[in-house]
């Protein structure tokens, strides 16, 4: 029962559309994380031990992996947002494709560098 997508979603795809899609997806993910963050830190109302315990719940492999996903979402959203600010406010609309390439390169570099902080075996 899948409604077929309109033609403009899969014809003439360009890099701007893909950046926009990832920007929106990462934005939703960060919003969900924000609610979870406030909920986790709310344990401070029950005292210091409850607070330490509720943070220590995330100190396993799965928690570190989820944190890495948060890093991916935040880094991509930030870099794309900076690209949009540059294109809008500094009159760089002619450099659009180059700016998008720059953001993807910076994104991959930052991800590769930061993986060693989360999984203390890997390092690139």
């Amino acid at each position, binding site marked *: 029962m899948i409604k077929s997508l309109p033609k403009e979603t899969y014809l003439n795809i360009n890099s701007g559309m893909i950046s926009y899609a990832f920007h*929106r997806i990462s*934005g*939703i993910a*960060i*919003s969900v994380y*924000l*609610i979870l963050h*406030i909920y986790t*830190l*709310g344990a*401070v*109302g029950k005292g*210091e031990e409850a*607070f*330490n315990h509720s*943070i*220590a719940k*995330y*100190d396993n492999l799965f*928690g*570190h992996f989820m*944190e890495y996903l948060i890093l991916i979402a935040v880094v991509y959203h930030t870099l794309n947002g900076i690209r949009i600010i540059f294109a809008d406010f500094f009159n760089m609309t002619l450099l659009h494709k180059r700016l998008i390439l720059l953001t993807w390169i910076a994104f991959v570099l930052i991800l590769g560098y930061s993986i060693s*902080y*989360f999984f203390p075996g890997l390092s690139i």
Partner: protein
Amino acid sequence: MHYIDIGDKPVTFALVQERLQSPWWILFDSLLLITALYHALNGIWSIVLDWNPGKTVRRFLGWSLSIVGIIALILGLYILIPFTI
């Protein structure tokens, strides 16, 4: 990062309390909370507008997002208080 701090110290109550003794960090955390909540909920509102709902649904979702924002703001600022003592 949830557990590993910059100086390889685990994130505990004491670590956060030490940082939040300075009023500049309190101001920074409060401003970050307000900005992040506003940006996130405004983004969700923009997604709702892309679906182009009718008048009633739009008003309902708009008000619910605003109320979620106000509640989260009050909760967040209330959570900051035990660290500043």
